[in-house]
């Protein structure tokens, strides 16, 4: 009976896993085929003519895809790093302490996830202009924090809600300094949350379009800007090629952090706490 149950369980897990992979990978296959196609029309199952033109364009100086790839990686990493810096203390405060006006703070932090960006982007633009932050990479990194920080804070609040600060007191009573306590006790305990929250923050920053365009003033050309040019104009071949490059960092990071994303991770389990 017991054995039967676990067999059922594991085959169920295998099935859902296979389904999930199909669901994630299947849409990418036409994208990959399109990037090598010269014309692909219904009802042909495969393109009649193949071409490397789209990839040649994607790697040319004119398209600027490679420069833009490095720039986008830099911006997203910086935005992720800053989100962690802000999100960890904020998550600790929200997850562990009760204080006056806590729900108001929670609402304010969640606001960028609720209010559609397009509604506030022109207002943000004028604020950034008056602060002299437009047309520069630091300005773009800063504006990306608006949508990334809520994810980070939310995940960290969940982590800290399940966190027992008695471990810290124990370390301190054994003579560890505050930085040592943080490094050896707190950080390992909250690491899964930092990874999951950081992954969210990276991917959210990675996909920003309108905020980057307005605050960057066209000087800061990230990959989504190049991608949407072709996606909206119906050039499936070039969209496919840039799209394949575009999803690469996300996949790499996903693979590197996959073990922290399983259902057994405290980071995911603690999500419901806030």
């Amino acid at each position, binding site marked *: 009976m017991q054995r039967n149950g676990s067999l059922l369980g594991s085959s169920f897990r295998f099935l859902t896993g296979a389904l999930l992979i199909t669901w994630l990978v299947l849409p990418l296959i036409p994208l990959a085929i399109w990037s090598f196609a010269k014309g692909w029309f219904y009802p042909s199952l495969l393109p009649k003519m193949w*071409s490397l033109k789209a990839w040649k364009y994607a790697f040319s100086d004119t398209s600027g895809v490679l420069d833009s790839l490095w720039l986008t990686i830099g911006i997203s990493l*910086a935005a992720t790093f800053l989100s962690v810096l802000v999100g960890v203390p904020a998550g600790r405060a929200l997850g562990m302490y009760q204080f006056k006006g806590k729900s108001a703070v929670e609402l304010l932090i969640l606001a960028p996830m609720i209010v559609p960006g397009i509604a506030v982007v022109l207002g943000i633009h004028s604020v950034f202009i008056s602060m002299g932050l437009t047309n520069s990479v630091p300005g773009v990194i800063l504006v990306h924090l608006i949508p990334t920080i809520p994810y980070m804070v939310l995940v960290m609040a969940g982590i800290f809600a399940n966190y027992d600060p008695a471990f810290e007191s124990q370390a301190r009573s054994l003579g560890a300094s505050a930085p040592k306590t943080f490094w050896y006790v707190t950080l390992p305990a909250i690491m899964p949350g930092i990874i999951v929250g950081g992954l969210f923050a990276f991917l959210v920053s990675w996909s920003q379009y309108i905020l980057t365009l307005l605050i960057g003033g066209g000087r800061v050309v990230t990959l989504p800007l190049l991608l949407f*040019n072709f996606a909206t104009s119906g050039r499936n071949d*070039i969209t496919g090629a840039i799209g394949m490059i575009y999803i690469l960092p996300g996949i790499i990071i996903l693979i590197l952090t996959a073990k922290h994303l399983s259902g057994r991770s405290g980071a995911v389990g603690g999500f419901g706490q806030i």
Partner: protein
Amino acid sequence: MNKTLKWAFLASSLSLAPLAVSADTADGESLIGKSWEDITAMARGGEVNWFLWGGSDNINQYVSEYIGGILKEDYDIKLNRVGLSDTVEAVNIVLGEKESGVMDKGSVDMIWINGENFRTMKQGGLAYCGYTDTLPNNKLVNWDNPAIANDFGVPVDGCEVPWSKAQFAFAYDTARTETPPRSIGELIDWAKANPGKFTYPAPPDFNGSVFVRHVFYHAAGGVDNLLGDFDQAKFDEVAEKTWAILNDLEPSLWREGKTYPTSIAAMEQLYANSEVDLTFNYEPAGVGLNIENGVFPPTTQGYGLTDGTIGNTNYTIIPFNSPNKAAALVLQNVLLSGEAQLQKALPDVWGTKAAIEVSRTSDDIQAKFAAIKTHPNVAPAAELAKAALPELQASWISAIEKGWIENVGN
């Protein structure tokens, strides 16, 4: 640990920040009437940020490689091409800057523009005006031609410089359709006889809107009565007939007209995948590029209508707060040159029609223009030119778009 990382981040972000521009030529008034040598000298070593629709690799290559190459080699100017998905994005940047009081350090030096966006720029005081005579190649532009001097009925008044001309054309697949409809009247009958095989993008899409205007002209029995200022009585009379025609047509459209494509790109995909049998575009040369790029089947053929199709001119504009006006002027002058207009007209480069008066260029350039073999599948320019219709004033256009949304698209 955190501190080092933070400093590393700051250092790396600083190194990514754009370098400051050396020569500031934001004061446009002082440039007007200056000698061309002075202006090119002021522009030398600087940069120019040109915002334009970026959805075509052919156009991107022409701009970045050909035009950018000339600017670099002959004038030592760095051309920064900023690709847009929609021109209104650039207009919004300039608008936002004006509202925030950025009067001379704008981020946009030039925009590829026409129609509604030009009207916004001109009426909002967002354009740098009155400089066109300063450009040496302005003499190649025929400003006496009302189709050049007016951008969708709005007088240009020296606030922009023409770049290309375009004329609406249809296209069909010779492998699927034997005889396509060659007038708006025939098209309506054809669509009813072939249910589900025709549709048009919902206005205010640029191309959908111009298709509806063709029906509007058809309902009015010609365009002559519609030219000039907006006339509510005339509009009401023609609009009623137009909505009746389009509502009557709706059940015969793709998906019984319950939904319309939202963009021309979406309709072109429907056409490419045989869902609909006709497509159209304000840029007739697009058929050639689309075949070469595999977007359209190679059996696609462009054509004009016997009762005429609407033509327009598109322009480049310099925003009032551009800090690199001298470089933008040099760029506009290069774009207007016979050589650059010729290159743009070559079918494997772009194939779009010159906005300059070719007869005013050198004999050599004229001979090369005459020798251009247009893409065989593109509607011949001469055939289109025989039946060219003017655009209406912008007030008519917005009334028609609004009326369509209320009466047909609801």
